[in-house]
């Protein structure tokens, strides 16, 4: 049970500024996911919390106590690594018992805790084996077990599922979530996979180039991205973007680009009025696009040509071109369209996003 506070956290390596002024409060029992492309500083941030990297400036507190200069062993945290980092010369049992032995727990207590953790993770039959005799998923469980036996104040996860195959990853993801509900330990989880971030996190921190881009609950990031980067990073397939010019026709505002003319909904009209005549970026998610029918007026529909059809079973992804804009639309699986067909697409006016062309911040 613990609260973790990062204040103006910075990390400079010789010639790179890896983490820039990160401020973050992780509440007690919260599962927070740091997500971003590689090199965005998420792992470095995690390693600073663990005490494996020195802090260039700023402060890290765990439960009010500043831990900046505390060695990893005294922070009462547990970490699960991407390559599992199991001790190859020890049995599974000893791997899990090592942390307790180092902390001078009694033999009986160690035995009890290891058995208990093994029970939770379903690895009792493996306790006498060596790590190299285990499959990837089993190793991952042992690594988790090694973390939970210690009953630490904070769990740190550094891309723990990246080395697993796709199917196992989904399965372990669910298990991790179940485990968190059961243990209710504060957790910080690093990943580059936005699906993992969205499914696991109580809150998600999106990072890029060492800077925090947005912190929020998963659906908040999806529904109201703070900038173009977050909008493109969260959601798959990614949001469609088109550079448009804001025009005023007298009866309303329009977003215009060659081959595209879309009315700007009333809810956005006020803020966009001052961008009249300027270029902005329009964002629309593939799932906010659908094939137009007779009832759709010209305000929110446009013509396009199908370039690629990707049937996925539960849905079809259409790669289309409207004017010179490539767009992806997620349409009903019953849709029958072929490559080179001309289709009219309609969009949901309440699900349009607008971004400043220069700052890329959401408008």
């Amino acid at each position, binding site marked *: 049970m613990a609260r973790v506070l990062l204040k103006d956290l910075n990390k400079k390596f010789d010639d790179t500024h890896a983490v820039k002024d990160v401020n973050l409060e992780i509440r007690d029992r919260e599962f927070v996911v740091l997500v971003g492309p590689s090199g965005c500083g998420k792992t470095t941030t995690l390693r600073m919390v663990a005490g494996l990297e020195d802090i260039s400036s700023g402060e890290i507190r765990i439960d009010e106590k500043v831990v900046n200069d505390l060695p*990893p062993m005294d922070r009462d945290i547990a970490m699960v690594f991407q*390559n599992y*980092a199991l*001790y*190859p010369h020890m049995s599974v049992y000893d791997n899990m018992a*090592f942390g307790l032995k*180092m902390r001078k727990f009694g033999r009986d207590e160690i035995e009890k805790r290891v058995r208990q953790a093994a029970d939770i993770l379903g690895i009792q039959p493996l306790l006498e084996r060596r790590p*190299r005799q285990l499959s990837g998923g089993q190793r991952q469980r042992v690594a988790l077990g*090694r973390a939970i036996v210690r009953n630490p104040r904070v769990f740190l996860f550094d891309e723990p599922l990246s080395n697993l195959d796709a199917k196992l990853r989904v399965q372990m993801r669910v298990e991790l979530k179940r485990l968190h509900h059961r243990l209710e330990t504060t957790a910080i989880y690093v990943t580059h996979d936005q699906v993992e971030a969205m499914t696991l996190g109580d809150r998600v921190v999106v990072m890029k180039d060492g800077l925090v881009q947005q912190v929020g609950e998963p659906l908040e990031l999806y529904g109201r991205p703070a900038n173009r980067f977050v909008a493109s990073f969260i959601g798959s397939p990614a949001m469609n973007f088109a550079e448009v010019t804001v025009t005023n026709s007298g009866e309303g505002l329009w977003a215009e680009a060659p081959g595209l003319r879309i009315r700007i909904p009333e809810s956005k009209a006020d803020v966009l009025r001052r961008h009249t005549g300027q270029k902005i970026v329009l964002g629309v998610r593939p799932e906010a696009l659908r094939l137009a029918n007779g009832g759709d007026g010209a305000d929110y529909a446009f013509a396009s040509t199908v370039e690629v059809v990707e049937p996925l079973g539960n849905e079809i992804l259409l790669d289309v071109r409207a004017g010179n804009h490539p767009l992806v639309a997620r349409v009903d699986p019953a849709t029958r369209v072929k490559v080179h067909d001309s289709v009219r697409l309609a969009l949901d006016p309440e699900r349009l996003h607008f971004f400043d062309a220069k700052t890329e911040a959401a408008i």
Partner: protein
Amino acid sequence: MIEGAKWKKWLWFYLPMGMFILGLLFPFYWMLVTTLKPDGELYRPWNHPLYSPFWTSAPTLDHVKSLLLETLFGTWMWNTMLIALVATLISLFCGVIAGYALARLRFRWAGLLGTAIFVTYLVPQTLLFIPLAEIIRDYRIGDTPWALILTYPTFLIPFCTWLMMGYFKTIPKELEECARIDGATRWQAMVYIILPVALPGILSAGIFAFTLSWNEFIYALVFLSSPEQKTVPVGVTSELIRGDVFFWGSLMAGALLGSIPVAFVYSFFVEHYVAGMTGSVKG
């Protein structure tokens, strides 16, 4: 395997392999056969009708007997063993610690220091023995085992350091980080996690260091003078070659017996040794 490709395997694999093995083992066979030959056969000229360089018709243990009874061979073996063991242990200890520091600790000049240590290994012994002789005279340890125990590490430590540095680098650093998060100090993480994992590397370094000191010739020749202080390579060559007379039978017996401990050490650790040379650690 596909029929008909068999002869190819013989031609390209077994034949070269056989020749290789033959070439490698021949010196040992030559040592053995020379040891067992009576002097009469040994010094037969090549044009004698019974000239048989590759086998003997009357094997004898006379040369071994004369080696063991008439020379100080036992003492030489003991000296060599003692010197090689102690020098190896000292070098291994220093090499493991230095290798660990160079591979793991981030400090200024770490790379430069690593290179500098390697360069000292490149200085030939034939050059180093001259200044070292002065030092040994000044400390009055000439003609004692210490003269070698303290000079062998000059080439063994760089060697062990480099070998260990390479090995430590193959061990994922997460292992150690995990141990430190688990509650171990850096020192404990090294003792409980890194050293056991690095055991194959440590054994290879040890075997190599032991062999190098066992076979070392020039320092032993220069720094030791009395027969009862000598090591096997120097003792055998200096006591069994008198002027231009080579006691080939006893010389070869000495070489053969002298190589047994090394062969023994190799075969004992061969599995670890091979792992240390070729393998790394997989988490």
